[in-house]
C-alpha cells in the first residue's frame, strides 16, 4: 500500500492509526533514543543500517541496489534511516523507498529539528554526509561505509555473517 502525506502531521496520524490497528508503521520517526532501540531490537542479528536522504544524488543511485540486496538476503535485517535535515519529507521519502523496493523494510525518517543531536547519538564523528551504511554483526561489531557502498562489499559481509552460523 502506498501512502502520501503533505506534512509530518500526516505521518503522525498514519503512525498512530497503524499502531492502533497493530500493523507495522510504514515510516517511523527517528528521535532521541531511537538509535539505541534500533540496536536493541536487532541485537544478535546481522543488520544493515543505511542512512540516506531524498536530496542526495548518490543516494538515488544506491537505493535501488540496496532494495535488491534486501530482497536477495532475507537473513539480513535491513533498516533505512532518512537522515536529511528537516523539513523531512515523508511523501518523497516513502515514494523513493517504494520505487527502490524497500517498502517492507524497517524505515525511519529523522524527526528532530536538532539533527546534530541525532547524529551524535549514532556516531559523534559523523557530520551528516550521506549515503552512509553501518554493517552490524551478530556480535555487535560495526563496519561503517562512508559514501556509496559497493554491493560486492555487502555481499562479502553478508556471506561472512552466514558462514559463522
Amino acid at each position, binding site marked *: 500500500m502506498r501512502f502520501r502525506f503533505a506534512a509530518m502531521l500526516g505521518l503522525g496520524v498514519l503512525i498512530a492509526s497503524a499502531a492502533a490497528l497493530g500493523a507495522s508503521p510504514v515510516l517511523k520517526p527517528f528521535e532521541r533514543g531511537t538509535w539505541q532501540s534500533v540496536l536493541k531490537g536487532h541485537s544478535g542479528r546481522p543488520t544493515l543500517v543505511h542512512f540516506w536522504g531524498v536530496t542526495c544524488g548518490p543516494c538515488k543511485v544506491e537505493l535501488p541496489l540496496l532494495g535488491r540486496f534486501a530482497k536477495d538476503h532475507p537473513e539480513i535485517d535491513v533498516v533505512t534511516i532518512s537522515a536529511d535535515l528537516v523539513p523531512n519529507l515523508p511523501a518523497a521519502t516513502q515514494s523513493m523507498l517504494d520505487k527502490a523496493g524497500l517498502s517492507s523494510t524497517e524505515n525511519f525518517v529523522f524527526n528532530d529539528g536538532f539533527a546534530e543531536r541525532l547524529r551524535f547519538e549514532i556516531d559523534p564523528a559523523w557530520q551528516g554526509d550521506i549515503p552512509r551504511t553501518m554493517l552490524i554483526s551478530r556480535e555487535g561489531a*560495526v563496519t561503517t561505509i562512508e559514501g556509496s557502498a559497493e554491493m560486492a562489499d555487502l555481499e562479502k559481509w553478508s556471506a561472512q555473517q552466514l558462514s559463522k552460523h
Partner: protein
Amino acid sequence: MIRTGALAIVALAFAHGPALAQMRAPPASEAACEEPTLRCATKATPAFGPDGTLWLVWMAGGQVSVASSHDEGRSFSAPTQVTTKRLNLDWGPDARPKIVVDRKGGIALAFSTFRDEAFNGEVFYTRSADGGKSFAEPKPITANKESQRFEALALDQDGTVFAAWLDKRNRIFAKEAGQKYEGAGLFFTSSSDGGTTYAEAKLAREGTCECCRLGLAFAAPGRPVAIFRNIFEGGVRDHAVMTFTDIATPGEVRRVSHDDWQINACPHHGPSLTVAPNGTYHVVWYTNGKARKGLFYAHSRDEGRTFSAPMALGQPGRNPTRPYVLAGPKGTVIAWKEFDGERTSVHVATSRDDGETWSPPRTISNTTDTSDHPLLVSNGGQVYLSWMTKADGYRLIAIEDQP
C-alpha cells in the same frame, strides 16, 4: 571508505519509548516557528552597508525577508518581504540567502528554491534601489532550467556584483552521449548595474562536488576568487581555488590540500575563503580524508599556487563543524561550531600576523537547540559573529581583540 569498530550495545529501558514517540510524532523543524519573521528563521545572512547599517536577509516560513539594524543587531527595522508567496526554498544544510550592499546603498540578493520533486534547484536574484524598502520581483539568474544550487555573491570595489553557483545543465549532454556525469559545474555571471541584470552564465569548471557551499571573494579589483570542493581524479573530493583572470575569464584550478577524501556522497559541508588587503588567501574547510580528518585552516600568499600546511581546528571529540574565516581590519578571524551531545558552542581564533600564528580558541556563544552556521561579518572597524539559533534567536556578537 570503510572503518571498523566495536559498538557497545547498551540495553536501555525503552519500555514505552518507541511507542510513545510514534504516537506523538511531533512535526520536526529546525525553525522555532513558521511565520516569515526573523524569530522563525533557520538561515540568516548579514552584510554591513557603507553607513554602518547592518542588513540581514533570512529565510523563514517559506519566505525571504530583509531588515536592517542601527544598534548592532539589538533591534531591527520592520522587515521587507522579498518574496510574495510561500516558496519551496532550498533547505539544504549549506544553502542560505545571500546579500551584498554596495557603496550607494543598493542591496543585491540571491536565493535558491527547489523547483521540482526531484529537488532540482533554481537560483533567483533581486535588488533594492530604495534602501531596502522594496525589492524587484525575483528573477532566475539564468534561463537554463536544469538545476542550480549553492549560489554565492561577492561585491567588487567598483560595484560589480559577481555571482557563482553549482549547475547541472551539462548532465543532459552527458546522458545523451551515454557518459557518466559526476557532481556539478561551477557557473558564474556578473552584474555591472548593481544586481539589476546579470550577464549570460558561463561555465568555469565541470566536475565539482554538487552539495557544498562555495566561498567567494575578490583577490584584486576585477579578479574574483572562488573556493569549492572539487572532484579530483578517482572521485577524491578535496578543495580547490580558482582565481579569475578578469570578471569573465576563469583561471586554473589550484588544489588547497591533498586530504584524499575519496567519497561518493554529499558532504553537505562547504569551505570558506577570505582575501586580506595584502592579497593573502585564508581558507578553512572540512574533510574526512585519508590524510587528515576534521576542520583545517591554510593560507596562500601566491594566489593559491601554494598553501601553508593545514592547521587543525577544534577539539576532535567535540565534532567541530562549519568553519568560517574573515580578514578584518585588525586581523583574521576563524569561527566554527562544536557540539558536546547537548550543547552547541561557537569558538573563534584570531591572528594578527596574517595567519602565521593564532590565538588559542575561545568560546563566544552557545545554544541548546539547533542552529545556523556561524558567520563572520565586518563593518570595516570590527568583526562580528552572526549566528541564528532556534532557542535564543538571532545573535550578533563583537569579537574582541586578542592580546
